[in-house]
């Protein structure tokens, strides 16, 4: 039997909650601050005859909130807690600030890109197109071919380098490779393009342009990402597995190929997908070495090759007559590019989620 003694609820001076703002306090202040902000910017808009500005509402409201919460908290809770409240407000504000460009960018691209998101856009090239019409088939094929060749170059090199670093590497060589892979992560993409140009200009002379050169430049950017992610994954494979396999007399290379790699496979595929997502949107190196063209080109080893990012850039910065048609194509190309990158990112996460080895304990 429990006896429930319902003490009369006391309205004041609970020693644990006295001197604190109630949980709804900051929210109420925020609401009031935004209302004041709306009123102020509404008055200003009315006085100067401009449109009501949501931006100034939010900014004024935010500043008023920061001041108000600090003062109120200072009075009720004391200086230390007031600082804490102020910082909390600032930190949350910083996060919201970072989301503004993301949301604005995605909304802009979707709205502007929807204009030409039609069948013609995906089935036509730009050959003999002036003004409206035309499409990006040649750029999509170019992007796929260049990225495919970049992957063909960088995936084996990256994975074998990671195997060397984790399974074999000792001493100075391994340290040097680790260090320079890290440094390589920071190579500006335009420098990678210049390198590919300098390399191919040796064989083919000045002014060389080819899709394969673009692939070489991209692989320079892709290799460090593949090495790093594969390395991380191989390090996660428990040593017990390696030792068990070796103890059964399996040669080391078979241990790596049949035990270590399959265990890490999901992680490696995720890493490679993310690396592809990173390079597929690269513009600068392709602008330099792959160049631009309005025609379809299936041969990566010869001639200029259009790619999606370069297409978007080129349409936007050098429009012809009927400017808007060129701008629309640029935005739709940007939309397609964002969609490709997002699909790759989501795919990478799904692979990591569904195919990761189960922790069998």
């Amino acid at each position, binding site marked *: 039997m429990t006896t429930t003694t319902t003490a009369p609820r006391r309205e004041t001076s609970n020693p644990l909650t006295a001197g604190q703002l109630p949980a709804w306090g900051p929210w109420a202040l925020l609401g009031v601050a935004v209302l004041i902000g709306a009123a102020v910017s509404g008055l200003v808009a009315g006085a100067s005859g401009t449109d009501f500005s949501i931006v100034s509402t939010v900014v004024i409201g935010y500043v008023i909130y920061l001041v108000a919460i600090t003062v109120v908290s200072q009075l009720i809770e004391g200086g*230390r807690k007031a600082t*804490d409240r102020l910082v*909390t407000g600032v*930190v*949350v*504000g910083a*996060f919201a600030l*970072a989301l503004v*460009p*993301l949301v*604005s*960018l995605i909304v*802009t*691209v979707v709205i*502007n890109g929807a204009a030409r998101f039609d069948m013609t856009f995906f089935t036509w090239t730009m050959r003999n197109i002036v003004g409206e019409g035309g499409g990006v088939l040649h750029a999509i094929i170019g992007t796929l071919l260049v990225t495919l060749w970049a992957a063909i170059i960088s995936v*084996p*090199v990256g994975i*074998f*380098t990671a*195997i060397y670093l984790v*399974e*074999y*590497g000792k001493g100075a*060589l391994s340290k*040097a*490779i680790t260090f*320079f*892979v890290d*440094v390589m*992560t*920071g*190579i*500006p*993409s*335009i*420098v990678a393009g*210049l*390198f590919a140009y*300098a*390399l191919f200009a040796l064989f083919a002379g*000045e002014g060389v342009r080819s899709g394969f050169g673009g692939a070489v430049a991209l692989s*320079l950017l892709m290799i460090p990402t593949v*090495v790093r992610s594969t390395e991380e994954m191989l390090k996660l494979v428990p040593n017990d597995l390696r030792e068990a396999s070796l103890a059964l007399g399996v*040669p080391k*290379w078979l241990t790596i*190929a049949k035990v270590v790699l399959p265990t890490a496979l999901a992680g490696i595929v995720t890493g490679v997908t993310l690396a592809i*997502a990173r390079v597929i*949107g690269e*513009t*600068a190196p392709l602008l*330099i070495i792959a*160049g631009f063209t309005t025609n379809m080109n299936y041969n990566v080893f010869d001639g200029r090759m259009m790619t999606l990012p370069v297409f*978007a850039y080129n349409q*936007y*910065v050098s429009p012809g007559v009927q400017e808007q048609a060129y701008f629309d194509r*640029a*935005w739709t190309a*940007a939309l397609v*590019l*964002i969609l490709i990158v997002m699909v790759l990112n989501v795919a990478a996460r799904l692979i990591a989620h569904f195919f990761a080895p189960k922790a069998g304990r």
Partner: protein
Amino acid sequence: MTTAAPPATRTAAPNRPADVIFKAVSTTAGVLILVALAGVAIFLVAQAVPAIIGPLPEDDSFLAWVWPLTFGTLWSAFLAMLMAVPVAIAIALFITHFAPRRLAMGLGYLVDLLAAIPSVIYGLWGIAVLAPFLQPSYVWLAQNLGWLPLFTPPASGTGRTVLTASIVLAVMVLPIITALCREIFLQTPRLNEEAALALGATRWEMITMAVLPHGRSGIIASSILGLGRALGETMAVAMVLASSGAVTFVLVGSQNPSTIAANIALRFPEAHGLTVNMLIGSGLVLFAITLIVNAVSRIIIAKTTVDGGR
């Protein structure tokens, strides 16, 4: 019948050809990376030499030609870091220490999305959205704060100034710095944090006493890494910035310094002859700058690897 036990010999593992080949292939792949990096340096130097030693058509020397570009590169990257680093630290703190635990992962993913967007799209957004949005405030700044050397009038009519370009750069490096800072803040020893809280510290006091001191070198290293990215960023700057090649600190004017990377992207497609060598020479300068910046950051990171806080 007694059979003598066979003498216990230590048999070395058989030297299998497949093993040797596999190891050789792996090692070759590693060495190939070093060769490629050396190749980048050698080829760039080889192509740049005619511009560096030879007389240039327009200017007296290569240095005089490349200096305004180098200035623009450093200045825009500096401005970008000035904006990005405090915001990035605040976001990392928000995700690790302020956001509800369940939301934190998802919110972190949102910030990572910023890194996934291709730079050419940032360029489009900068021209079409950000520059027109900021232009009125540039006019206001030039009118009211024009006595400051930073805001000397006349203001740009398009808004495509070095400040706009730097804001785009700041948005682009934000996720890089945030991601690293987040990792480092998460590595703060749990016991230190709880000890601070148990002694009655507020959350912010706990952060200043436990989290920030622990992560100081990590913050520096990640900022330098972001700086490397800002220095080398090409397309966004090439598209957003309306440059005239002037060396000026004015943020809101129509005379803006160009950057090395943007200049290469804009001029290379039509370049020929010595211009190609000049552009590659400027690329070499950029390569050297980013190489130094990244190496410094990597050395700081390597020296301060955290071992789980025990």
